[in-house]
């Protein structure tokens, strides 16, 4: 399978006065091209930090300590972290763009939608005229089913939450990127709008062949809309595979817990169980496997040995758990 981005042993630390907080810990993953890959994790699991490394845009005092992030663009492969500031400015948004968490607040409140689109286009294409910019904007606003005449001259406060989110999606498409990062795109929206936005994203994914990286904590959204899923916990990758494999086989105890703790209308109410305990304290990480204090299958080796990611037999399914030795499926 072709890939678009590859994380290689990425470590991100937030450097504080007395200690270093490791938000992303030795993360390696290849993101497939042309697919929707979901990155699932609770708050504090490091998913937003990881996504911001793709734009080399980790907020201070965070720092990418080591690792490589390879971008596979057509005929050339390069490490995003090696780009100098001029090249990086060209790279951002035109190759990888991002729909930020809380689109409600991501737009400039004192500029109209068109002014903001035009400003972005102008930075990347200096010779663009207003008419050309307008044509591009109309094209993308229509793609996200917005009435451009209404939206064009509107200020953000005149639009509803769902409309602003669609404006942000159009915004992310503006420079024809090959990968879009979607950071919790529907958290503040209700189910009907959520479904509408995801169907729109799926259409964009299929028609324009744009790869997507979807960050979310809602596992039911993943099973409905994504193709591949990576599960993150305490800054580490716990499981990766196709949505079908991960959801039907339920290999990793954490993934299993996540699936079982999510209420759903088709499930028996008694089968819904919470995961005991609290998410890990990043300043005081558990030894061995990060998940062992909350795991119902933990045994004597779990607090001592940090498991390696192993490839399961059914291909392209990675699990980080001592229960699995890889190769064959012995439990």
């Amino acid at each position, binding site marked *: 399978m072709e890939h678009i981005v590859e994380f290689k042993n990425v470590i991100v630390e937030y450097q504080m006065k007395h200690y270093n907080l490791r938000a992303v810990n030795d993360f390696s993953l290849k993101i497939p091209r042309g697919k929707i890959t979901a990155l699932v994790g609770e708050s504090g699991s490091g998913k937003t930090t990881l996504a911001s490394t793709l734009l080399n845009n980790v907020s201070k005092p965070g720092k990418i300590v080591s690792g490589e992030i390879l971008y596979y663009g057509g005929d050339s492969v390069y490490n995003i972290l090696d780009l100098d500031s001029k090249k990086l400015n060209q790279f951002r948004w035109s190759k990888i763009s991002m729909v930020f968490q809380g689109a409600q607040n991501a737009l400039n409140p004192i500029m109209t939608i068109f002014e903001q689109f035009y400003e972005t286009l102008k930075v990347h294409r200096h010779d663009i005229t207003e008419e050309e910019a307008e044509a591009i904007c109309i094209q993308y606003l229509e793609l996200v089913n917005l009435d451009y005449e209404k939206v064009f001259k509107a200020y953000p406060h005149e639009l509803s939450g769902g409309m602003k989110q669609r404006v942000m999606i159009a915004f992310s498409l503006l420079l024809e990127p090959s990968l879009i990062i979607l950071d919790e795109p529907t958290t503040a929206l*209700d189910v009907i709008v959520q479904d509408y936005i995801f169907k729109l994203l799926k259409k964009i994914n299929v028609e324009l062949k744009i790869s997507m990286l979807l960050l979310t904590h809602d596992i039911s959204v993943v099973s409905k809309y994504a193709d591949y899923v990576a599960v993150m916990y305490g800054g580490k990758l716990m499981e990766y595979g196709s949505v079908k494999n991960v959801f039907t086989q339920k290999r990793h105890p954490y993934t299993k817990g996540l699936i079982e703790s999510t209420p759903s209308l088709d499930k028996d*109410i008694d089968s819904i169980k919470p995961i005991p305990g609290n998410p890990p304290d990043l300043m005081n990480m558990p030894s061995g496997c990060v998940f062992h204090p909350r795991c119902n299958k933990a045994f004597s080796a779990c607090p001592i040995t940090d498991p390696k990611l192993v490839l399961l037999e059914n291909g392209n399914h990675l699990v980080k758990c001592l229960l699995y030795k890889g190769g064959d499926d012995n439990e």
Partner: protein
Amino acid sequence: MNELIRLENIYMNFEKSGKILEKEKVVQVLQDVNLTINEGEITVFVGESGCGKTTLGKIVVGLLKPSKGNVYFKGQNINKTLSSKKEYKSSVQFVQQDSYAALNPVRTIYQSLFAPIKNQRREMPKGEIDNKINEYLELVGLKPAEQFLNKFPHQLSGGQRQRVCLARAVSLDPKLIVADEPVSMIDVSLRISILDIMKRLNTELGISFIYITHDLATANYFANGGKMCVMYLGEIVEDGTVQDIISNPRHPYTRALISAIPIIDPDVDQLSKEIPLKTMEIGNLIDRHIGCSFYSRCLYSKEKCLNPVEYVLVGNTKVLCCNLEGVNDEK
């Protein structure tokens, strides 16, 4: 069952100032809401953003005074003949969505819990209040309580803060807790445990709950066996038991809501299913037309839907729809 709260013909209007020389606009948020809440009962208000569910919750708690209509607490009108305002105020408690904003950041958990009890029971000695605080913290699963007493809200996780808010609400021995999206900002793996605590408070202490949400899946988990009011644009469009409504939704809007909820099963093709709605745009609250407020989005709308609508009783469910035969025929 004893009646606890009765809402009678509640209307709520907010005034919106127009441009200079223009008439003031009136936003009609609630339209003729009638509802009874009995002791020990769980009621869910469900609907999308802007449907008035939070406004209705605030009216029940007494934070907002309705523009028209009456609220009765144990048969007494709370704005007129209420003999004991104190009893009403402590009997009806509110738990908000954002636990961080709901707790004073410069007060410790102990101080936040101490003040309301002291305020209500001035004669109670300090030692007794301290015991009560310990008891309530352990009731909501914060064990050992001493560990939390001297912490500040920012030192707790979202789930723990929401538990503190619940403990604070319970500390005044309420008859009813209005919980406004109490778990929407909490990680999926911890949501169930918060809902479990609320369930326990309901069964063990007999506290009634009003659960306000847009998430039908958690509503089904928490309020199975309780009542449900589906709201659309300030009206209750369907009113019945949770089981009836979820297994056999009658109103076209309820059907749309239920069809939008993702199911955790990658084998079910959910993407090809369209949501049964004409348009995504929610109707306008400012210039309401007579007749069905769902008219503009309803797939089954007929000309007669523009006449005033009345509730139809189907089984034990009250439905606000004028063309139910049409809806059922096409099912």
